[in-house]
């Protein structure tokens, strides 16, 4: 067995790595967020008085809950479907078709959606030909539509990946248990309620937290979908920090906005953790 000193020695590279590549940059970020203004807190005052930033936080929270709740539901459903037909050619086709979007870049995904929903896109052509509208609908000018589109596109993109994780969790259910339940409760809904969901509950909770955190940090999709009209309804703090820091060159403002959002994320995570504790 190693002594404590030896263990500490072995852990040193990892500690140093973390210190210089995570703690040090974080400390410089904190210091930067307090500098460059008239007072120590002027960057924070500026950010917190900016209605666009406040709205971006609300948008992010909507993405957090929307993407995680809708995403978990859809991917668990797909996983159960794959498990039910496990080994068949249909299952493999389903797995491939749901996983493929995960490999696509956001530019491609938005391109597909834009081809459908832009004014000269398929949806408008269909509606005009059916006589429902005369002038094309500007879907991307609608904040609500754009926000829902971001949630659906994200869920669609990650569906196969998330479903695969749940599918693997389902594969660990003992065959004997399935056979026993099949004798007593042979309907699918009974199996889902009494076997599948309880068995993958801990996986669901872990995935919920991971997807929730990822959704709070939404950047690519919000940046690509954003335009002058829908911007305030789709922008997230990550986009806000990018635009303040990189586009406008106000790094101290960007750092302050990142710090505020970091704290909000931690609070939200604690609340969500508390809320899900009873299901463990």
């Amino acid at each position, binding site marked *: 067995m190693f002594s404590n000193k030896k263990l500490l020695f072995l852990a040193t590279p990892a500690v140093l790595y973390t210190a210089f590549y995570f703690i*040090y940059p974080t*400390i410089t970020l904190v210091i930067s967020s307090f500098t460059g203004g008239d007072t120590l807190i002027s960057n924070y005052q500026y950010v917190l008085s900016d209605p666009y930033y406040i709205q971006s936080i609300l948008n992010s929270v909507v993405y957090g809950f929307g993407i995680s709740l809708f995403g978990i539901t859809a991917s668990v459903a797909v996983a159960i479907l794959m498990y039910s037909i496990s080994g068949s050619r249909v299952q493999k086709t389903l797995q491939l078709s749901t996983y493929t979007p995960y490999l696509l870049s956001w530019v491609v995904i938005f391109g597909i959606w834009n081809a459908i929903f*832009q004014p000269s896109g398929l949806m408008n052509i269909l509606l005009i030909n059916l006589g429902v509208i005369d002038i094309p609908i500007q879907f991307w*000018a609608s904040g609500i539509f754009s926000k829902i589109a971001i949630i659906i596109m994200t869920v669609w993109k990650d569906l196969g990946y998330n479903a695969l994780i749940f599918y693997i969790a389902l594969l660990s259910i003992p065959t004997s248990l399935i056979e026993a339940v099949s004798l007593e409760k042979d309907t699918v809904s009974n199996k889902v309620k009494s076997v599948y969901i309880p068995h993958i509950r801990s996986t669901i909770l872990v995935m919920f937290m991971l997807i929730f955190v990822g959704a709070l940090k939404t950047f690519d999709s919000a940046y690509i979908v954003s*335009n002058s009209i829908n*911007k305030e309804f789709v922008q997230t703090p990550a986009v806000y920090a990018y635009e303040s820091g*990189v586009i406008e*060159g*106000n790094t101290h403002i960007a750092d302050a906005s990142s710090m505020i959002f970091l704290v909000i994320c931690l609070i939200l995570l604690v609340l969500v953790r508390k809320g899900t504790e009873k299901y463990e």
Partner: protein
Amino acid sequence: MKKLLSLLSLALVILAGCSSTSGAKDTGGCEEDGAVQILSNLHVKSSDEASAWSDYVSEELGFDVELTYIEDEYDTYVKSAYSSDLCYDLIYTAQPFMMGDEYALPLDSYINDSEILSDETIIPSKAYDNLKQFSSQESIYGIPNKNEGNLVLTYRQDWLEEFGMEEPTDLAGWRQYMEKANEEYDAYGFISTELYDIQPFMSTQGVQFGLVKDEQGKWTVPYESDDAVVVYDWLGQLYDDGLYEPNMLTNGSDDMRNMMMADGVATIGYWDTWVGLMNDKMAESNPDFKVIGAKTMVDEAGNGYTRAGNPGAFLVNKNTQKIDQDIKVLEFLHSPAGDLLTTAGIPGVDYNLEGDDVVFTSEGIEHGADHGVPRSLNKNYVHPYSEFSLQGAEESAEKVEDYSFIATQSVDGVDYWTDIEQIIYKYGIKSIIDPELTGQDAVEGMRSEIDPILDELNQ
């Protein structure tokens, strides 16, 4: 263990707080030895070509030069390079906020001492003035890169001639031309990316893009003035009548160019260099295709405004340790050999010399004689080749030259325009696509959000 971690944390805090104020000179990662490091997203088309570019320039100058080419997210990369002490001695940028002490070295004295950089025929003083105005700095923080050109209303000259019409000089005339193009070719009249391209129409009302000082010396935004209402209403009417291509919220500039070259639209607001590039590109497939830029339109008082391109420049890193070599590189780029390099490309890669003749390789043809400088600042420079003549570009530029201006977007190093522009687009586009909203509603909406920004700016 706790003590150890506490000490480590304390050391990191001190390190973080004092990293830029310690006794040793902070050179931001720049070194005295080694190659002159250059960063650009413009002067080559790939990392492989960057390597060939570096070899060629090193051989010409007699010292090592290394060009790094970043294709995507260039501005993010530049910022990251500074924050991580990754030193580039020369950095190409078109960002006004970078043209100041925080990032760059003031170059006034170096320009005065250089025969090439101070030569009016090679780099016109107007190019330096534009740079100073753009960056809102008293000093010059970069060496202008190219003839930036102007945003001109580009139309199909072949169609106009076919319709038997003269070049329109007012909104009514343009509408007539667009209607005719729609009838004859089923083409849209106008296409834009958001409202980036409407300055030629705004000029008919004497309205200027960007921040403009009024007679009292206060900053104003003419795009939110009553004079602009006519243009928003006129564009809204084009949209309602199906003459305004409707995808302005998602269009990119390539969509505009492609649609024009595919006979899909009659007019675009775009850079005059592209007049030449489009004519060159279409010369073989459609010899009848000919686009040209329109003259600047003026209001009743004779005021007209054509927007000049934001000046891009090579900055010298404030931390550079090789200033003499940096200046030599910049002088080389503005020499005849540099002009050939930044247009035709690298000898042996983009072209080969057969006697005095430049013979383009397939790669050179693909690159279209644009390696960062489609049109040189040096008006005396003549390309030693006949291809890529940019037919119509010079003529288009001359038609608007007298009314050309650099838009003011930042004041005292602070970028006010990014936010203001978004507000203009938001209300302007809403008024165009929503029949219930008028141009007057648009400017009132703009004022509700822009005026507080102007109040802060004018304090």
